[in-house]
């Protein structure tokens, strides 16, 4: 497989940019990177040297709450400008990718259609309801939202997501955007369960299958299933997986109530799914994971780290996405007691743990720290 000039791995349904589109996308990549790291670091410095000391002089101590920091920074002109530029950069990134996708849509749809039946499978179910939490906002400011279709056999949302996320994360998710799946396998499963040989794997909320494919590669003997509620994501996911020659069974199902028979899987996973849902949905997903696992089976849900692993200013910066990048559950998920919720789902408390593993994606914290991702792990 070839790579684009910016490193993304090409495949049959990637909305690869032409020269002009690539230059524009690179400009936005540079803008977003500069804002996320260089300017964010300067804002942190400004907070630590000016704003926090001024607050401490008045109140006796620096703020310890991200909410208080948020109120202070909302009045700061540099933070206002940073936020305005970040939001604008995000919107323009999607607009550029949308233009490039629209130019190629007919070809991409044709390619996806030609790959049906080649390897793996695609099962869509129009009766699946898109949960309210995905309908409330256009997640990540994606112009299609996460799930909307513009016509029959549409895969626009998937094409947007694949190319957009690569630019959005400035390549930190790897050439195939598969860093989350690879991180779970390399830094958790291969370390703590090196002899694992699952016969059946389920990836919940798979979107375009970025994190699913590493499981198909790592466990070639396993039957790999991946579900999502969004048909355009799944159409794209199947074509993408088929393009890589990896047999994955994609199906339109809701992770809260999948419809699979109890005890169908040895390994149930998800990757940054939980923050796109709700507290009630997270509980339902954990309960469904328990139901789906065979005795001795393993559940792993990967999600960005809880607030308790960050200092208050990092919490404030991370929280930015909640209201400014249409991620309504982004902050709340970071406060959930997932171990207690897993126990309520049926897992024995002694079989539940939380882990923090390395990952390529770095959250915006104003610090030069390495990327980490949290896991809620439980064995049935």
């Amino acid at each position, binding site marked *: 497989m070839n790579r684009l000039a910016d490193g993304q791995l090409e495949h049959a349904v990637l909305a690869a940019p032409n020269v*002009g589109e690539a*230059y*524009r996308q*690179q*400009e*936005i990549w*540079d*803008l977003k990177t*500069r*804002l996320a790291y260089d*300017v964010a670091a*300067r*804002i942190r410095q*400004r907070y630590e040297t000016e704003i926090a000391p001024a607050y401490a002089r008045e109140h006796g101590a620096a703020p310890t709450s991200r909410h208080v920091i948020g109120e202070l920074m*909302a009045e700061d*002109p*540099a*933070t*206002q*400008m*940073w*936020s*305005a*530029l970040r*939001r*604008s*950069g995000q*919107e*323009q990134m999607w607009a550029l990718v949308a233009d490039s996708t629209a130019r190629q849509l007919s070809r991409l749809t044709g390619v996806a259609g030609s790959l049906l039946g080649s390897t793996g499978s695609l099962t869509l179910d129009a009766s699946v309801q898109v949960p309210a939490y995905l309908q*409330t*906002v256009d997640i990540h400011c994606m112009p299609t939202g996460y799930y909307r279709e513009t016509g029959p056999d549409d895969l626009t949302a998937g094409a947007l997501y694949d190319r957009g996320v690569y630019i959005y994360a400035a390549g930190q998710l790897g050439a195939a955007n598969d860093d989350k799946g690879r991180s779970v396998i390399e830094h958790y499963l291969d370390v703590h369960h090196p002899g694992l040989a699952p016969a059946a794997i389920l990836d919940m909320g798979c979107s375009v299958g970025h994190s699913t494919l590493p499981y198909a590669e790592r466990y070639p003997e396993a039957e790999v299933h991946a579900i999502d509620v969004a048909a355009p994501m799944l159409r794209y996911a199947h074509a993408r997986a088929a393009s890589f020659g990896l047999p994955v069974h994609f199906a339109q199902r809701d992770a809260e109530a999948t419809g699979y028979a109890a005890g169908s899987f040895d390994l149930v996973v998800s990757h940054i799914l939980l923050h796109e849902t709700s507290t009630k949905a997270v509980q339902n997903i954990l309960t469904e994971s328990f139901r789906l696992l065979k005795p001795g089976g393993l559940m792993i849900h990967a999600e960005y780290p809880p607030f308790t692993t960050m200092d208050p200013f990092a919490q404030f910066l991370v929280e930015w996405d909640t*209201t*400014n990048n*249409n991620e*309504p559950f982004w902050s709340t998920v970071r406060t959930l007691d997932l171990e207690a919720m897993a126990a309520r789902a049926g897992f024995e408390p002694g079989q539940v743990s939380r882990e923090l593993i390395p990952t390529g994606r770095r959250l915006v914290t104003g610090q030069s720290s390495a990327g980490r991702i949290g896991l809620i792990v439980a064995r049935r």
Partner: protein
Amino acid sequence: MKTRRGERPVYLGDAHTDRLLAAIVVLGQEIGVLQRRVAVLEGRDPGEDSVALSRVVEELTKESR
């Protein structure tokens, strides 16, 4: 900053100013694209002197320094 659920927040006092900023970013981006194209025509690395948008950002975020 106004941040109502699902609606576009306002950052710089009013939506018109935010749109003006977005237009400035687009202009900086397009100048950057032209710089890349010129660099190619001159046989140089297209990323070599694509500095327009960076300079715009530096100017706009001076207060953070």
